[in-house]
């Protein structure tokens, strides 16, 4: 070590010629190219594809936003939450209340503020964030599965409120969601009538673009977050809370903040869900929705932003596709026919897929994609293998664990 110099005293980094040290790993030009192609295809899709696919697409975009948010909490930080459905509900209800009109529909006497839908969307995100903030002191003090159990209560509280606070939520039957509009441009079938290259751009086409923009923004924000200071802190506190705190990370503060961010993502996803279905009802925000979101991120890959998106695509689109092609898909029957209902069939498939993922590909669809990418580049493949310590072995599988602290007591 005689030829190396000791680290210079604290202060701004010196300008030293440092060949190759700071050089980032070799980047292929293929990846950005593929991204651009994918984006162009996504942008052009409404010109060629029928309404069913666009509506499915918007539902998927909404789920992507929610799954990315949950993955920040569960996959990246190792905090289990079963309350995602609750925060989706807060977002959705806030939107329909803030932007919906007052008035009576049938028995229910609904109240609404009738504010612009953009305000309603922002309110949905902020109020979900507020709900997350109120719960975050609990989230900050619990870890792993204990938080999961504690958060379960929120779903039941949510169900009760949704069913009983009729003037805001519409009660058991729910209430309809107002059309989205942006500075006078409605995301509906008309007003203004719109044709692009001779193709009528109606509600489905317009919502597709809205969803694309929101999902892309959610994706980029999360990815930037993970690649920088807060993301590193979150990942380290997943692997070892003691190490993170000793390195200067305020563990409780970060757990509270990631819970807040996650609930805001859920709030936006809730607003998008309301727009996608056109109405909100209590049954849309039950415990099984939380479970489906967990299925998305486990299938997609815990801790991976792209994985969350893939998982959301798989879990959201599959039942819809089964439903549409009930006559073609074996064993699946349409409503009122024999055979499995589409939703059930999809659920069996998720169950099977989750078992397969946990057994053979713990890093999920994202890990599968990464494996193929590596195969193309170098056959050896660098793969993290936790061979030396508990800290690394738990983190390579990315499974959140509530292992006790790492500090040794020797």
């Amino acid at each position: 070590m005689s030829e190396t110099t000791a680290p210079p005293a604290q202060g701004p980094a010196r300008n030293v010629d440092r060949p190759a040290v700071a050089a980032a790993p070799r980047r292929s030009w293929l990846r950005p190219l593929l991204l651009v192609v994918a984006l162009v295809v996504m942008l052009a899709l409404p010109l060629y594809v029928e309404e069913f696919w666009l509506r499915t697409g918007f539902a998927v975009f909404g789920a992507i936003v929610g799954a990315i948010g949950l993955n920040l909490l569960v996959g990246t930080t190792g905090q289990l939450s079963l309350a995602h459905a609750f925060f989706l509900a807060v977002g959705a209800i806030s939107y329909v209340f803030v932007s919906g009109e007052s008035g009576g529909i049938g028995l229910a006497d609904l109240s609404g503020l009738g504010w612009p839908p953009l305000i309603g969307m922002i309110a949905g995100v902020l109020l979900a964030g507020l709900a997350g903030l109120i719960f975050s002191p609990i989230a900050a003090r619990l870890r792993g599965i204990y938080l999961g159990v504690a958060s379960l209560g929120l779903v039941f509280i949510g169900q009760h409120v949704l069913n009983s606070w009729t003037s805001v939520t519409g009660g058991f039957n729910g209430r309809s969601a107002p059309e989205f509009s942006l500075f006078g441009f409605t995301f509906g079938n008309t007003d203004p009538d719109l044709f692009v290259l001779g193709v009528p751009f109606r509600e489905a086409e317009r919502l597709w673009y809205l969803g694309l923009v929101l999902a892309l923004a959610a994706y980029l924000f999360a990815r930037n977050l993970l690649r920088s200071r807060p993301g590193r802190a979150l990942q380290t506190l997943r692997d070892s809370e003691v190490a993170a705190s000793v390195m200067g990370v305020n563990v409780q503060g970060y757990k509270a903040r990631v819970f807040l961010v996650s609930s805001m993502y859920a709030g936006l996803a809730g607003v998008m869900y309301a727009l996608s279905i056109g109405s909100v009802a209590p049954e849309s925000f039950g415990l099984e929705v939380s479970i489906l979101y967990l299925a998305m991120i486990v299938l997609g890959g815990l801790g991976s932003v792209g994985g969350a998106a893939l998982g959301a695509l798989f879990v959201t689109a599959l039942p819809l596709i089964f439903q549409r092609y009930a006559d073609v898909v074996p064993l699946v029957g349409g409503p009122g026919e024999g055979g499995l209902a589409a939703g059930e069939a999809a659920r069996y498939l998720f169950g099977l897929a989750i078992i397969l993922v946990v057994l053979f590909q713990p890093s999920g669809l994202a890990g599968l994609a990464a494996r193929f990418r590596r195969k193309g580049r170098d056959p050896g493949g660098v793969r993290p293998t936790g061979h030396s310590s508990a800290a690394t072995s738990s983190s390579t599988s990315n499974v959140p664990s509530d292992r006790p602290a790492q500090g040794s007591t020797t």
Partner: protein
Amino acid sequence: MTAAPGAAERTRPDLPPVEVEHVSVRFGAITALSDVSFTVEPGTIHAIIGPNGAGKSTMFNVLSGVYKAAEGQVRFGDARLDQMRPFQIAGIGVARAFQNIALSGTQSVAENLMLGRHHLTKAGFIAAGLRLPRATREGKRHGERVAEIAEFLELGDKLHTPVGVLSYGDQKRVEVARALCTEPRLLLLDEPVAGMNAEETSRMAEAILEIRSALGISVVLVEHDMGMVMSLADRVTVLDFGRRIADGTPAEVQADPEVIRAYLGSGDDISPSETADAAAPGDHPSETPGMHS
């Protein structure tokens, strides 16, 4: 404040001593540390030794705020370490390298080291998520310093490798590098050479000496490798069953009859060439006296 013998040529002027006074730690009925006192003089390398289960790592956990002392005080200048939370202690320049490697295996070496810059940087969720220019600039600036420190610990060519695939010796060096990345005034090294071979051990020893002399910081060392302790340390505190049984220069401690009786019981000699088979990761404390676990 007087510099102890062997202190760095230029100890940092703002460097206070670490004063551990009558510290006791209990876990239920078990007393892990009982009335332990010692002082780490500024700019010295201070070793804490003792058989397995003597309370060495417990002492470290008290110094870094992970455990709370039931009694006693730990002072670092004006700061009362025994009353602060771990991240606050890191904020005043106390860094620790873990015995059982506590790195994030999926993250690269650079990312693990950047965590050491956490308390020196500011980018929050919004600045990072939106990639605001100040967050990007900050990351870049600190990335350069991280690369320097990695180079110093011979990790320069592994910056972008996931820590999980590195060899054990490399991972131990990443631990030390991460602690250095916090720009510490007090560096706590918990068995930095445990499990390393002789070659790696001597390089690590050189690195520790260079860290002390170049940065002028204090180093507290828990170590099983007697040769390393005796050649590096300016002062040695010996613990046994949670009590301090000796405190002095390496020569004094080696000659202390109590140390020889309690610590070396079986008649082992403290010879510089000896390499104790240091505790493997995940090793559990056992109450057997003697250097070999």
